[in-house]
C-alpha cells in the first residue's frame, strides 16, 4: 500500500496545485514544497520497512487493470529500485526549493508538472508490469517537454521537441518488443500477461533474444544516453530551467540504466551476452568522448551535460561487467551521479539566477564574492570528479574493479566471458577518471578562481540560506555515501545476488535453444509466481500476489483460447457445359397466354380487396397481358 501512497501523493498534489488560483504563486510553491516533502517522508518509511535480507520484491501491490489483456497494476520494489525511488523523492523537495526564485511565470503549472513528473518517475521505477512501465515511461516525457518548452530559455522549443522525439522513437521500438514478448509468451503458455515476474520465468530463442534485447537496448541507450545517441542531452540541458535540468540529470537519465538492469538483461540474458561487448565498447567511448567534449565547451551547462554522458558511460560499463562488484558499483554510481550532477546543475542554476548566462567567460573570481557558495560548489565538484572519501570514488572504484575482474568468470560462475579485453576497457575507463578531473577543474577555475574580470561579478551576493538549505542534503549525502556506504550497499546486495544467480540460470537455459516460442523454466526460484505447470490445463494466472496487508489476491485473468484455424478445402470447379442456346434470330418460345380478365371481373375483385383493406389495382411483373 505504501508504494501506492508514494505514487498517489504527488498526483493529488498536482491536482491540488492545479486547482489553486493562478495569482497565488507563493501559495503554489508552498503547496508543491509540502507535497514533495510529504512524498519524501513517506518514502523514508520504505527504508524502515525494507527487509534487508529478502532479495525478492517487497511492498508488492497488484490489482488487475485491464483484465482482458492480462495487465495488472503490479508494483513492487527490491534492492535495485529502492534507492532510485529514494533519490527521486529526495530530489523532489530540493528542486522545489531551488525554483522559489528561478521560476516566476506560470508557477502553478510548473509545480503541477513537476509533481506529475515525480509521480511518473516513481511509477516507472516501481512498476513490475511491462505495460504499466511503458505507460509511466511515456508519461515522463510530457512534463519534461513542458518544462523545457515553456520555462526553458534560448532555443527551448527545438530542444524540447528533439528530446521528446528522440526518446519517443526509442520507446516505440521498445513497445514493439514488449508486444512481441506478450504475444509469444501467451502463444507458448496460453497465458497472456505483461507481468514482469511471470515473463522472466520463460526464456526466448537465441535469435529472438538478440533482436529483442537490441530493441530494448536502443530505447534505454537513448535514455542513458550512450555515445552515438546522446546529442539530445546537451540541448535539453542548456535550454531547460534549473529544476528541469536537475530532475532530468538526477532521475530521468537513470531510467535508461534502470531499464537495462530491470528489464533488458533479465528478460534476454543471451541477447545481453551477445551485445555486451558492443555496449561496453560504446560505454568506454562515451566516457572518453564525453570527457573530451566536455572540456571543449564554452557553456557551463553543456559541460556538465557532457559530463553526464561520461559518468553514465561508467555505469553502463559496470553493468555490462556482469559481476557483483560491477553491478553494485553501477547501481551506486547511479545514485552518486544523481546527487553530484544534480548539485552541479543547482549551482550553475544559482549562477544563472544572478548573471542570467551560462557562458564560462562571463564568470571568474567569484570565490572572493561568494566563498560559501564556492565551498559547497567545490565539494560537489570533487564528488563528481570521484575524489576518494566522497561518494563518487566508491562507485567508480567498484565499477572499475568489476570491469577489471570480469575475465575471472561472469557472475562469479563458469559462464563464457562476454567482453574481450575487459581489462583494457577498464584501463581506458580509468583514464576517464583523470579526464573527469581535467574538465571539472577547468569548470571550477573558469568560474571561481582568478581575479574578478567582469565588473558585474564584483557585486554578486553570496549563497542565501535557501540556497544553502538546497545544497545541505546533497553535501551531507556526499560525505555519508563516501565514508560509510555500508547501509546503502547492504540493501542492494541481496537483489544483485539474485539478479546474477537468475542471469546464470537463464543464460544456461537459453544457450543453444533456438526455438521461436519462449520456453518456461521451472527451475527459477520465484515461488511466489508459480506458473501453471506445463501439462496442467491452461489455468488463469496463479500469481498469488500478496497485498501489503498479507491478503493473497489472485487476480482472475480470462483465458484467451486461440482460434482454431481450419485450412480451407480446395474445391475443384466442375466445368458445366453451358446450355447452348440456339443461335439465330428466332424469337423466344411464346409463353403460355394468360387468361384475359374481363372488366366486370376486375370491378368485382377490386370491391373484394377493398373490404379486405388491400389496395385496389394490380401491379405485377411485366404488366397485364
Amino acid at each position, binding site marked *: 500500500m505504501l508504494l501506492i501512497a508514494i505514487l498517489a501523493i504527488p498526483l493529488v498534489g498536482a491536482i491540488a496545485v492545479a486547482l489553486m488560483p493562478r495569482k497565488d504563486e507563493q501559495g503554489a510553491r508552498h503547496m508543491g514544497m509540502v507535497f514533495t516533502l510529504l512524498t519524501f517522508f513517506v518514502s523514508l518509511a520504505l527504508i524502515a520497512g525494507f527487509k534487508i535480507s529478502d532479495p525478492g520484491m517487497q511492498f508488492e501491490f497488484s490489482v488487475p487493470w485491464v483484465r482482458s489483456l492480462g495487465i495488472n497494476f503490479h508494483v513492487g520494489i527490491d534492492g535495485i529500485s529502492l534507492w532510485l525511488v529514494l533519490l527521486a523523492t529526495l530530489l523532489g523537495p530540493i528542486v522545489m526549493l531551488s525554483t522559489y526564485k528561478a521560476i516566476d511565470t506560470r508557477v502553478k503549472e510548473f509545480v503541477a508538472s513537476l509533481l506529475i513528473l515525480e509521480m511518473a518517475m516513481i511509477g516507472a521505477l516501481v512498476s513490475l508490469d511491462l505495460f504499466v512501465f511503458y505507460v509511466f515511461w511515456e508519461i515522463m516525457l510530457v512534463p519534461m517537454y513542458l518544462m523545457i518548452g515553456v520555462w526553458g530559455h534560448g532555443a527551448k522549443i527545438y530542444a524540447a521537441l*528533439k528530446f521528446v522525439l528522440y526518446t519517443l522513437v526509442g520507446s516505440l521500438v521498445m513497445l514493439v518488443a514488449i508486444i512481441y514478448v506478450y504475444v509469444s509468451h501467451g502463444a507458448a503458455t496460453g497465458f497472456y500477461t505483461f507481468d514482469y515476474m511471470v515473463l522472466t520465468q520463460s526464456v526466448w530463442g537465441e535469435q529472438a533474444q538478440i533482436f529483442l534485447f537490441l530493441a530494448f537496448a536502443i530505447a534505454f541507450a537513448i535514455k542513458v544516453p550512450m555515445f552515438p545517441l546522446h546529442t539530445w542531452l546537451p540541448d535539453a540541458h542548456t535550454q531547460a530551467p534549473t529544476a528541469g535540468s536537475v530532475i532530468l540529470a538526477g532521475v530521468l537519465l537513470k531510467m535508461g540504466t534502470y531499464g537495462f538492469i530491470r528489464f533488458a538483461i533479465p528478460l534476454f540474458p543471451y541477447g545481453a551476452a551477445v551485445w555486451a561487448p558492443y555496449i561496453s565498447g560504446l560505454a568506454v567511448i562515451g566516457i572518453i568522448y564525453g570527457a573530451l567534449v566536455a572540456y571543449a565547451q564554452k557553456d557551463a551547462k553543456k559541460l556538465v551535460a557532457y559530463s553526464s554522458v561520461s559518468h553514465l558511460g561508467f555505469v553502463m560499463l559496470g553493468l555490462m561487467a556482469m559481476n557483483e562488484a560491477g553491478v553494485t558499483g553501477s547501481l551506486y554510481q547511479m545514485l552518486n551521479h544523481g546527487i553530484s550532477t544534480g548539485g552541479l546543475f543547482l549551482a550553475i542554476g544559482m549562477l544563472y539566477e544572478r548573471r542570467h548566462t551560462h557562458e564560462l567567460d562571463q564568470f571568474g573570481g567569484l570565490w572572493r564574492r561568494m566563498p560559501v557558495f564556492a565551498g559547497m560548489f567545490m565539494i560537489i565538484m570533487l564528488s563528481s570528479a570521484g575524489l576518494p572519501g566522497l561518494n563518487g570514488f566508491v562507485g567508480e572504484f567498484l565499477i572499475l574493479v568489476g570491469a577489471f575482474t570480469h575475465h575471472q568468470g561472469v557472475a562469479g560462475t563458469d559462464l563464457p566471458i562476454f567482453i574481450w579485453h575487459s581489462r583494457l576497457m577498464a584501463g581506458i575507463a580509468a583514464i576517464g577518471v583523470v579526464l573527469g578531473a581535467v574538465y571539472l577543474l577547468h569548470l571550477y577555475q573558469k568560474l571561481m578562481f582568478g581575479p574578478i574580470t567582469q565588473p558585474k561579478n564584483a557585486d554578486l551576493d553570496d549563497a542565501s540560506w535557501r540556497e544553502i538549505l538546497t545544497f545541505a542534503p546533497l553535501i551531507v549525502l556526499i560525505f555519508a555515501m563516501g565514508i560509510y556506504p555500508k547501509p546503502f550497499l547492504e540493501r542492494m546486495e541481496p537483489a544483485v545476488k539474485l539478479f546474477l544467480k537468475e542471469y546464470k540460470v537463464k543464460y544456461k537455459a537459453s544457450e543453444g535453444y533456438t526455438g521461436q516460442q519462449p520456453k518456461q523454466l521451472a527451475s527459477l526460484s520465484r515461488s511466489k509466481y508459480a506458473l501453471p505447470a506445463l501439462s496442467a490445463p491452461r489455468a488463469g494466472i496463479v500469481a498469488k500476489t500478496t497485498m501489503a496487508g498479507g491478503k493473497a489476491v489472485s487476480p482472475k485473468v480470462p483465458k484467451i483460447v486461440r482460434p482454431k484455424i481450419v485450412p480451407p478445402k480446395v474445391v475443384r*470447379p466442375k466445368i458445366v457445359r453451358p446450355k447452348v442456346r440456339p443461335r439465330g434470330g428466332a424469337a423466344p418460345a411464346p409463353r403460355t397466354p394468360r387468361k384475359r380478365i374481363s372488366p366486370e371481373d376486375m370491378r368485382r375483385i377490386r370491391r373484394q380487396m377493398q373490404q379486405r383493406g388491400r389496395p385496389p389495382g394490380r401491379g405485377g411483373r411485366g404488366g397485364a397481358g
Partner: protein
Amino acid sequence: MKESFPLIWIPLLPLLGAAFNLLLGRKLSRRWVHTVAVGTVFGSLVMTLFVLRQLYAGWDSHHHTMVTLHHAVFDWINAGAVQIKFGLMADTLTGVMLFIVTFVGALIHLYSTGYMDHERDYARFFGYLNLFMGAMLLLVLGDNLVVLFLGWEGVGLCSYLLIGFWYDKSGTQKLGLENANAGRKAFIVNRIGDLAFIIGMFILFAAVGSLDFADLSAAAAQGPQGPLMSSYAPFGFGPFSLAGVAALFLFIGATGKSAQIPLYVWLPDAMAGPTPVSALIHAATMVTAGVYMVARMNFLYMLTPSVMAVVALVGALTAFVAATIGLAQNDIKKVLAYSTVSQLGYMFMGVGVGAYAAGIFHVFTHAFFKACLFLGAGAVIHALHHEQDIRRMGGLKSSLSVTRLTFLVATIAIAGIPPLSGFFSKDEILWKAISTANPAAPWLGPVIYVLGMAGAICTAFYMFRLYTLTFEGKCRLSAEEQAKIHPPDWRMATPLVVLAFGALVLGVLGLPGLFGEHANFFHNWLAPTVDQGAKFAALAIPGAHVTPAILSKSHGAEGGLMALSFAIALLGSVIAWRVYNKGPSVWARNLTDRFRGPYNAIYNKYFVDEFYFLVVIWPFKKIAWLLWKVVDALIIDLLCVRGSARIVDLMGRLVRQFQTGSVQHYLAGLLVGVGVILYVVAQPPDDFRIRANSIKAAGAPLKVLVGERVFFDARRPVDKAMRALEYKWDFDGDGKVDEPQAPTQQKGQKEQAQRWSKRQMANFIYKKPGRYRVVMDVRDTRWHTQARETQVIDVIDPNAPKVPVSGSSTHGKGVH
C-alpha cells in the same frame, strides 16, 4: 596485533580542526583559529609519541621483531568479492613517518602563524593545512592500499588547494591566474600518477583478491606458486610477472606524487603557494609519500628485480637532472624545489637498490634540513616583503643573523658534509647503491653511483651559491628596502632553530656499518618491516633476487668511498663560496656566456614544460574541440538527427505540390487513376496454347500415326474466371474450318467465319501421313479480341518401310 590504541584519533584530530576552521573560522578571531589548528597538530604529535613509545617497547633490535598496532575502524566498501575495510595500523615504518609528519608539521604550523599573520584568509589557510595533516596521517596509517589511496588523493587535493591559495594572484603580488593554474597543474599531474596507481591496485586485487598489506605480503610469501608470481601480459605486451607489472604501475603513481622524472613538472610550479606550504607539503611530507609506498610494498618490489632497477635508475636520473637545473635558478624557492626533486631522486635510488632503511633515513633527515631551508627562505621572503630573486638580495647575515645561522647549518647538511645528518643519509644510499648487486641489471650499481656523485657535487655547489648570494657579500637591495627588513619573530625563529638542531644531530641515528654492526639504529628499527621483502624474494626467486654484494663486508671500501663523497661535497662548497662570495660574479658570467647552449637548456629546465605542452596539452585541446565541433555537432547532430528531420520535411513539401485546391486537378487525377485501373484490369487473356495428346513438349513437331484419333486440348492452365471463350479449329491446314462441323450445309465464307464453338477440346483422324499445321482461333466474346495458335504435327504411316531419315524429310510431302 594489539588493539590497544585507537589510532583513528591521530588523523581525526587534525581533520576535526580543519572542519572547525573551514566552517566557523571566518567568523572567529585569529587567536581561535591558530590555537585550534596548532593545538590539534600538537595533539597528534603527543599521540604519535605515545604510539612510538609502545612500538619501542615492543621492538626487539636483535631479533628484528616488532609489534604492529591495528585499529579496524569500520567496513568501508563491501560488494560481493570486494571487501574493503577502513583499517589503520602502525608499525615501525609508520612510526618514523608519523614522527616526521607530526613533528615537522607541528613546527611548520607554529611557523605559519607568524608567516601568515597579516593574511586575510587566515582561517581558510589553517583549515587546508589541518586537512592536509589529516590526509597525510591517513596515508601513512592506512592498513590497505585503498585507505592509502584515500590519503594519497586527499593530500593531492590539499596541495591543489594550498598551491592555489592566492587564487586570484600570479606570484605573490600582481593579480592573475598563475597560482590557480599551478594548483590545477599539480592536481592533474598527480591524478595522472593516481591513474597508474589505481590500475596497479586493480591488478593486485584481481590476483590476490584483497588489498590489505597483510594479505598482500602473505601472497608474496607463497613463493613461486603464489598469485603474485603468475605471468601476466597486460595489453598484449610480453609476459611479465604479475608482481612486476603491479609494482611498475604503483611506481608510476609514486613518480606522480613524489615528482620523479616523467611527472615532476608540477613541483617547481607548486612554489606558487605560500612558503610554509612548500616547506610542509613539497619538501617534508607529501612528496615522500611515494618513497613510503615503495618501502611499505617492499615485499612486492623485492619480487621484481627488473622494476627495482627501473626505480633506482629513474631516481638516479632525476637526482642528476634536477641538480643540474638547480644550478641555474635565481628564485630562492625554485632552487630549493629542484633540490627537493634531486634529493627525492636519491631516496628512490636508495629504495630502488633494496636499501629501504637508507631511503627512509634520508627521508627522515631530508625532512629536517629541507624544512629548515624552506622556512629560512620563508623568513627571508617575509623580511624582504615577497622579494624572491637571490640576485637582488645579499648581505643579509647582519640583519637576519638567526636565519643565516640556521640556513648555513641546513646548507652544510644538505651538501653532505660530515658530521651533519645529510652526509650520513646520502652517503649510506650511495654506498648501498654501489654495493648491491641487482641480477636483472648488473651494470646498475656503478652507473647510479656516478650519477649520484655528480648530483652531489651540483647539490653542494648550488646550495652554497644560494647561501652566499643571499647572506654573504654586500646587500644589493635599495636603501629603503634594507630599512624595512625586520628579523623574524619568535614564532618563526624557534622552528628554524629546532630544525637546524635536528639537521645537526640526527646523523647519529644512522651511522654507517663502519662503526659496528648494530651501530645503525635506523636500520635495526626498520628491519622487521623492511626486510620481509628480502626473505620472500629469496623464497620466490632463489638466486635472482637483489642481494648486497660481498663488498659490503669490507669496511675499507666503505671508508674510502665515504672520504671520496666528503671530498666532493667540500669541493663543491668551496668553489661556490669562492665564486659567489662577493655577489653575482663576473667569472660565472663569462663561464655561462661561453657555454650559452647548455646554460640556456638548464635555465629553461630542458624545455620540459614546453615539450609537455606541445605533446599533451595542445593536442588535447585540439582533439576536444574537434570531437565537439565535427563529430558531435556536425556528424551526429546535423547529419543524422537534423538530416532525417529534413528528409521528412522534403518529402512533405514534395507531396504538397499536389494539393492545389482546384477541384479539376483532383478530377484529372481521378480520371487518370480510373483509366489506369481499367487498363490494367480489363486485359484480355492472351496465354493460349494448344496441347495434343497431353504431350507436354511444346514446340517440337508431334509424331502421330495415320488413322489414330488425335485429341487436341486448348484449355488454358489457369482459368478461374471461366472466360467466355470460343474456339475454331483447322486441322489439315487447308484454311477451311474443320471443327465445329457445320450442322447444316451453309455456304459462303461468312457463315464459316461465323462458326465458333465453346468446346475447348477437339479430336481428328488424319487419313494421309505428312506434316500438317493445326491452326486454332480463339475469340473472347467479352473483350472482342481474337488470337490464333498453331501446332505442327507429323503424321506417319505405320506400315510404310522405315526410311533412314537423313535430313531429307521434305516439308509437307508425306512418304507413301
